[in-house]
């Protein structure tokens, strides 16, 4: 029977699928038809025997909660407390299980934007490696038993050491204070092994108070970054990216100029207009040069002069930032420079991230032989070299998985996940964010604060009336029932604001000597995805390529070709890095853009316990970290070991004048704002097939602005989470079988130490003349009337012809049953998005423009009898993108953002000469070169211009 949904739409009472009229019953079952049915059933049975349909049990709800409708998602606001900055999150839950973490659109801190680890936190919720029960020694015990033993020890203890992470909310801090009061001789240490402890200390010395500088990149016309990867790994990356990207709109006339002087090659360096390769230990000399001193030999004097000129000319709109690993003298000099420039800087007097203690203090406290040591969510056995628990009488560790510290402690306690916990945080003055659970703790875990609360109450009954930490947080908030509900619904209270940066008070610090010739500067940086190692068990993050090197499932000694040559090593050889007593062997990754005396190493790898798939992946670089994060004068030599195998997702980086990722200098852009449209000339493109009219109804189109994109890879994780994309592991990626539907392509050109970088997100272009569609023998990929290139998984037989014929190579094939584990492990299965098919092996898949979101928006509007409006459909990648580089929408809606993006001067299509008519429009990147360094001359544009 036909189904007239237009008619149905007009019936206001019809809102659910349950109401669909059923076909009339057909009772005409004759002997003949019965025989037919039997034979068909037998045949189907035989055929079905060959297919793989997972066996399922379906539970139905007897008493349905009134707000819950099966299959209909519920959204909760909460706070991500697992990282360094308490970003607001919106968690999508279906049938009681969280399936996606997104940024909270109104949250003042991140404005709905996301970073990769925040989104990937979902996987750690469903991690089968999670500790299932409290453990005392080697035995599983109950919580009561564990608590009893702990309290007894605490009561008897004369010295207790509590080590926590840096991100503690006000309630947690208050509770910790109560605990310290109740437990005799207790001391609290904050342990953050990979975060900018040194710079925070330097700022404290300079500005005379604890706090954090917040650079207002959005108000800067000129930004000079001194080995500061503010778009990649340093600080509040999500806000930094948003603020920076806001200044990169050449067509709108807001266009900043970014100078980056750096040793390694970073995400920030890749976005730079001018890049100056600089040895990190020479940063002092660079600041001196900016302040009027002479440029060091080997530096491009023209770039230094341009920086100086730009800084001077943009007083009030110029900003200098310095990397967290640099010595105090650099921060002092930068503070002086910024003060002179009246740089747009804000000040967060009480950042949510507490200043970390010197690792030496923690080491000493443990070595002194505390009676009780409590580790809450930290892993010092892994990341604090020299941490010795031998003298501690009773060691207690709280964690999600049985990591190195839990394994070494007397008592190991399972934590509750961020999404299973109550909490509050205060990211900036005047604002409190709340964290609420979406799901009951899956494996009987208990959040660390609840443990602390239980122990505090056992030690001192008068400490608090709160039954649990929820009550504690609620009581502290001072909010009554309704206001509390409203606060939870909103996710935060107050709007918060930063103060103006104070004037620097103390600027005297002597710069340490730069590294000597023949030695190397080794920079230790928290991995952009694994952080300090806390997310090392997360398969999504392990398989997200490192943005610059595109390395997956490993870390390495990353260096430039010149350094490798000087050391006499080639890629994948091993080197030994020695500094003082510390020594470490690492495989070599050779990458263009690295200064010749600099090696970059990511921390957070080489976990040995509790990381599941991340155990024994990569090398633990913490043994080098005793001397801080910038190791000056490290001796590096070839280790002479057998080659290692490093896997990178992109092999060729030369775009060979194919003009794929197009760019021009500001001068060229000023002369020809539509330069991108004329980069490749081709004969007129004739349409052989009948023209399809896409001007009626919807026409879904995506736009990507290459000026905005920093290549941070947050979109990759968003897509993976939304679309149930499996991770495949190092070996499969090595064979070229990574499954990501969106990837960031990176092209390099010119000087190997300072190449020109182009980056572009590449995804299915949903071509209106799609080459993949014509070649599929079974019509498994077809074009929708709305311009989508649809992939029909259950029709696909996997000839892979479509993938061969895709000029963009964005189609991904399930070479094995990659999703088997996710389906077969009951807990991992819960992370799958029920609105997206989980693909079996042998099936082709690719970006769908989040068709499930398009349909959800259409249904929602149509149920209300309304038309879809611009902004109704937000794709997962677009939602996450901290730079707002991605626009999606219906081109046919007049005045829509995407319609404007399609018509922009900078708009172009990749490989347009193939006449495939992509529905993804790129906007070419403009490099805002300093006029003295812009050698573009009108009329001499390559490829002939007009």
């Amino acid at each position, binding site marked *: 029977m036909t189904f007239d949904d237009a008619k149905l739409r007009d019936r206001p009472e019809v809102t659910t699928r349950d109401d669909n009229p059923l076909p009339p019953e057909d009772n005409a079952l004759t002997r003949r038809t019965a025989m037919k049915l039997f034979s068909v059933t037998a045949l189907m049975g035989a*055929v079905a025997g*060959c*297919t793989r349909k997972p066996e399922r049990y379906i539970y139905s709800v007897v008493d349905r909660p009134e707000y819950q409708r099966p299959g209909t998602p519920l959204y909760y606001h909460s706070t991500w407390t697992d990282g360094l900055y308490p970003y607001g999150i919106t968690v999508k839950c279906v049938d009681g299980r969280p399936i996606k973490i997104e940024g909270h659109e109104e949250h003042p801190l991140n404005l709905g934007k996301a970073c990769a680890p925040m989104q990937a936190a979902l996987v750690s919720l469903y991690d089968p490696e999670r500790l299932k029960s409290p453990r005392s020694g080697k035995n599983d015990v109950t919580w009561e038993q564990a608590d009893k033993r702990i309290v007894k020890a605490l009561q008897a203890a004369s010295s207790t050491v509590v080590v926590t992470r840096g991100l503690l909310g006000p309630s947690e801090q208050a509770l910790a204070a109560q605990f310290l009061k109740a437990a005799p001789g207790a001391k609290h240490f904050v342990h953050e092994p990979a975060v900018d402890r040194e710079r925070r200390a330097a700022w404290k010395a300079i500005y005379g108070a604890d706090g954090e500088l917040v650079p207002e990149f959005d108000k800067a016309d000129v930004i000079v970054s001194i080995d500061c990867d503010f778009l990649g790994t340093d600080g509040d990356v999500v806000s930094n990216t948003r603020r920076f990207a806001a200044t990169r709109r050449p067509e709108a006339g807001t266009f900043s100029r970014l100078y980056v002087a750096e040793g390694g090659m970073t995400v920030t360096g890749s976005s730079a207009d001018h890049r100056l390769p600089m040895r990190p230990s020479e940063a002092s000399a660079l600041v001196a040069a900016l302040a009027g001193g002479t440029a060091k030999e080997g530096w491009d004097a023209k770039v230094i002069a341009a920086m100086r000129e730009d800084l001077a000319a943009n007083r009030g709109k110029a900003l200098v930032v310095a990397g967290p690993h640099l010595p105090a003298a650099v921060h002092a000099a930068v503070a002086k420079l910024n003060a002179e420039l009246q740089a747009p800087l804000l000040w967060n007097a009480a950042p949510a991230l507490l200043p970390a203690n010197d690792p030496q203090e923690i080491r000493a406290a443990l070595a002194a032989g505390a009676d009780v040591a409590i580790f809450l969510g930290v892993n010092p056995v892994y990341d604090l070299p020299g941490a010795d628990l031998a003298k501690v009488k009773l060691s207690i560790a709280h964690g999600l998985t049985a990591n190195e510290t839990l394994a070494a402690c007397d008592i190991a306690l399972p934590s509750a996940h961020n999404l299973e916990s109550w909490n509050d945080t205060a990211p900036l003055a005047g604002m409190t964010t709340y964290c609420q659970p979406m799901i009951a703790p899956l494996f009987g875990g208990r959040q660390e604060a609840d443990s602390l609360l239980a122990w505090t109450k056992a030690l001192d009954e008068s400490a608090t009336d709160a039954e649990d930490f929820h009550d504690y947080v609620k009581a502290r908030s001072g909010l009554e029932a309704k206001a509390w509900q409203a606060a939870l619904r909103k996710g935060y209270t107050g709007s918060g604001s930063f103060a103006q940066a104070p004037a620097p008070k103390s600027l005297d610090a002597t710069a340490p000597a730069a590294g000597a010739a023949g030695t190397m500067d080794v920079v230790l940086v928290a991995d952009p995805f694994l952080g300090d190692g806390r997310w090392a068990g997360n398969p999504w993050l392990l398989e997200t390529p490192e943005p610059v090197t595109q390395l997956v499932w490993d870390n390495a000694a990353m260096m430039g070709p010149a350094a490798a040559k000087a050391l006499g090593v080639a890629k994948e050889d091993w080197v030994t890095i020695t500094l003082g007593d510390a020594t470490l062997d690492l495989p070599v990754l050779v990458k263009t853009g690295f200064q010749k005396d600099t090696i970059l190493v990511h921390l957070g790898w080489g976990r040995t316990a509790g990381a599941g798939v991340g155990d024994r992946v990569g090398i633990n670089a913490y043994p080098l970290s005793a001397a801080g994060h910038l190791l000056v004068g490290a001796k590096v030599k070839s280790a002479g070991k057998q080659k290692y195998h490093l896997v990178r997702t*992109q*092999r*060729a*980086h*030369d*775009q*060979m*004048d*194919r003009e*794929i990722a197009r760019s021009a200098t500001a001068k060229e852009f000023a002369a020809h704002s539509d330069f991108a449209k004329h980069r490749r000339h081709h004969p007129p493109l004739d349409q052989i097939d009948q023209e399809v009219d896409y001007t009626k109804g919807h026409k879904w189109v995506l736009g990507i602005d290459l000026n905005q994109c920093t290549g941070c890879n947050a979109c990759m994780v968003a897509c993976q989470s939304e679309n149930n994309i499996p991770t495949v592991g190092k070996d*499969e990626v090595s*064979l*070229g*079988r*990574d499954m990501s539907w969106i*990837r960031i*392509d*990176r*092209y390099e050109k010119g000087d190997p130490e300072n190449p020109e970088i182009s980056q572009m997100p*590449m995804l299915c272009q949903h071509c209106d003349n799609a*080459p993949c569609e*014509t*070649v*599929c*023998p*079974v*019509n498994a990929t077809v074009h929708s009337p709305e311009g989508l290139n649809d992939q029909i998984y259950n*029709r*696909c*037989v*996997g*000839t*892979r*012809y479509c*993938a*061969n*014929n895709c*000029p*963009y*190579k964005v189609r*991904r*094939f*399930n*070479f*094995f*049953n990659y999703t088997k584990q996710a389906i077969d492990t009951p807990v991992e299965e819960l992370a799958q998005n029920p609105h997206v098919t989980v693909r*079996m*092996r*042998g*099936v*082709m898949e690719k970006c769908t423009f989040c068709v499930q979101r398009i349909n959800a928006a259409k249904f929602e509007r149509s149920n209300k009898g309304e038309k879809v409006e611009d902004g109704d459909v937000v794709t997962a990648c677009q939602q996450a993108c901290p730079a707002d580089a991605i626009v999606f929408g219906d081109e046919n809606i007049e005045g829509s953002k995407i319609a404007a993006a399609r018509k922009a001067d900078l708009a172009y299509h*990749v*490989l347009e000469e*193939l006449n*495939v008519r992509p529905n993804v429009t790129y906007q070419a990147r403009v490099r805002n070169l300093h006029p003295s360094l812009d050698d573009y001359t009108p009329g001499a544009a390559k490829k002939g211009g007009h």
Partner: protein
Amino acid sequence: MSDATATLPEDPPLVQGDITLQKLDDDISAPYEAFPTKRWWIAFLLVQPLAIAFLVCFVYTIGAGIGTWGNNAPVGWGWAITNFVFWIGIGHAGTLISAILYLLRQKWRTGIARFAEAMTIFAVICALQFPLIHTGRPWLAAYWLLPLPNSNNIWVNFRSPLLWDVFAVSTYGLVSFLFWYTGLLPDLAIARDRAKHKVRKLVYGIMSLGWKGSNRAWSHYEKAYLLFAGLSTPLVLSVHSVVSFDFAVSVVPGWHTTIFPPYFVAGAIFSGFAMVATLIIIMRKYFKLQHVITNDHLDVMNRIVIATSLMVGYAYIIEIFIAWYGGVTFERYAFINRALGPYAWAYWLMVTCNVILPQLLWFKKIRSTVKYLYPIVILVNLGMWLERFVIIITSLTRDYLPSSWDDFAPSWVDIGLLVGSFGLFLTLLLLFCRFLPTVAMAETKAVLPGSQPSGGHHD
């Protein structure tokens, strides 16, 4: 033999030695009538490990997935399609010999026609294994690629060259089989009539479909044979043209070339004849049929080999020329990459085997002496496999966006399937030699001296 143009210029006898009709039957029937010789058993047992390897790899691929191969994201098609095109190419000589040469009245074909036709069918059987298992879900691909009516009203995509392949290859396989079987009928009847054992008599009796050798039967037979020859002739040209469309119709630089259909057909005939020569030289020695399949046959076959070698060489040159002349950057790069890229060794080995070495066949001595020509035809087989490898791998590994480029390396399953497909092929061929007459007895009798009216020159 009145028609001078129909035979070789020197008019050597097509069957050598003093041979009678009876002796011919005896010689040709010996292998399938006698109990298998030790040599047959040795040969059969030698190829069995290969055939088993094929079975193992086949089952493993279906059980575990295409991931067991070397294929990856840019290289959707790897060795499986290389092998498919290779085997389809091999399958060209048989029908060409039986159909086109028959229509051209090339009487020398009689000695090798049966064997070449059988080889065609077995090659097509080998070829067909690959498109099936190369799909991700072969249990569905096995019938979803056929335009079967179904309740969902989902039709196959008639725009897809893969669908054209399904029709072209299945038609070719079917017609080749019918043609071969029709030709077999008189010989099966001879086998029946010679059979002494009851079971043999029954089986050959059923297979010969009641052939009586009457004038009526011969008359129908000749007409049917002619019709099949007529039907097969365009198929010889069409099947590889259609196979080439898989590549030519795509947008992949290095594939998107209009020269592909004739180039592929020439290449197929080239490889087919090389394979016939490779096998028949062994076969005639094993079964002592050197007097029926003579060195003159090899000579003529090698003339076709050199002619098609020149065509293939021409195609190689014109491809490069057009890539330059067309001015498309991607196309230019594809051919520069072929000649100088990571698979340049395969390209130059291919050129050597397919174009340079066959030039030696200009010398009559070389093309009619087994010890000289044998290495050449073996290397032509290698070269033609490499040609498909070069076309598929070099084009897919380096296409439009350099960001997606990746190399290809075969897995042990890839190797197992290639080597194993020879096992399957040789098994079928050995069984054929064991159970069926390898030379068309009835047809060969017609070219014996004195068997044809000789236009007034009565002896």
